[in-house]
């Protein structure tokens, strides 16, 4: 790995200043970024750790729902979100393995927007609001394709606000070697309708399955999906699963998530 200067500010304002430098890159838990840097796929000249910023830590109920600090590790979300949003706690508790969950954070996950990461599906299905050091971004506007988000240079996620659905569940089909989702589906039922977000399957990253949302908004049961099918065009195809296999998984897992949500 190439060397870099390391900074660890303790406030959002100081982090924003440090990230204004040329070649600066935000570091959260590092569970993706550090392996990426080892492969020299990322070569920042300044690394700005966000893990020392207290105002970006923790889980609490507030305006608009559950506020999760961007630097909150998965293990903490798994524990502290349970009473408020069990499906989100379940998702956080199933990411990677225990040691990864001690370090990895929600902000890091959604800033990276890996097409097989778990968190983007929860953020999109919940219609969450992504709060940055500059503005608030609706989930529907935030995810913009493979490893691409609405974040601009020098902008970083500070928290995510999750509206709490009436019912929700996340079902993940594990890719056992990487522990990422081969495909994962998050279903959230609100008074205003159902939202379905799929990760691990789409070539452009996380996406909403609109047909299923319509069907489930009319009838929230797995059988409501029986007449639907998912087009394999646009699905990821690799040695772990073909596009057709993933398209089928989307439907199967959506049904399982609906059943699990009860």
């Amino acid at each position, binding site marked *: 790995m190439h060397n870099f200067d390391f900074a660890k500010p303790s406030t959002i304002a100081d982090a924003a200043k440090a990230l204004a430098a040329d070649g600066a890159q935000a570091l959260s838990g*590092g569970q993706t970024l550090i392996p990426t840097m080892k492969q020299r796929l990322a070569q920042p000249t300044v690394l700005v750790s966000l893990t020392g910023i207290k105002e970006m830590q923790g889980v609490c109920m507030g305006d608009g729902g559950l506020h999760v600090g961007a630097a909150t590790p998965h293990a903490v979300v798994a524990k502290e979100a349970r009473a408020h949003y069990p499906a989100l706690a379940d998702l956080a508790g199933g990411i990677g393995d225990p*040691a990864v969950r001690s370090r990895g954070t929600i902000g890091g996950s959604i800033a990276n927007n890996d097409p097989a990461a778990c968190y983007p599906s929860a953020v999109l299905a919940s219609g969450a609001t992504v709060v940055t050091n500059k503005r608030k971004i609706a989930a529907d506007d935030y995810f913009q394709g493979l490893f691409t988000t609405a974040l601009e240079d020098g902008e970083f996620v500070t928290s995510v606000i999750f509206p709490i659905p009436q019912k929700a569940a996340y079902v993940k089909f594990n890719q056992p070697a990487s522990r990422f989702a081969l495909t994962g589906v998050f279903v959230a039922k609100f008074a205003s309708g159902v939202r379905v977000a799929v990760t691990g399957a789409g070539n452009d990253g996380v996406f909403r399955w609109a047909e299923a949302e319509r069907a489930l908004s009319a009838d929230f049961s797995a059988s409501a999906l029986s007449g639907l099918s998912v087009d394999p065009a646009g699905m990821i195809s690799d040695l772990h699963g073909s596009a057709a296999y993933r398209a089928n998984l989307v439907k199967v897992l959506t049904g399982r998530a609906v059943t699990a949500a009860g």
Partner: protein
Amino acid sequence: MTKVSMTVNGKAVSGEVEGRTLLSSFLREGLGLTGTHVGCDTSQCGACVVHVDGKPVKSCTVFAADVAGANVKTIEGMANPDGSLSVIQQAFQDHHGLQCGFCTPGMVMSSAALLAENPKPTEAEVRHYLDGNICRCTGYHNIVKAVMAASGQDVSALAAE
């Protein structure tokens, strides 16, 4: 180079590190604590697991500078003060929870983190918790048995396969 200080196995330590110095390198090369093993260096195998402020982490995927000031515990800090093996280490020996032993430091550290959080885990919980620790020798059965035994549970009924 910057100076970092932390507590490792109860002792205050410090050393000069680069930004890119991993916690695993700081422990092994900086402090000579070579009990922490680096198996894959890609955060897959878990041989390098240590505790940072009581939580298990893969020390090959944490920068030393990012955990300055933390309380770190490695396999060298697991034995009892008189030098005898801790309950978990003794259980690994008694139940043949290792063959080559390369993964054992990480296995012991992850198991200790599990038992601190969940003192009487079920077999399924042990297997799930050790998901991020890879052993290529044992087939895991005796590792699971050792962790169950270390938690004070009867393992005589646990299958050998």
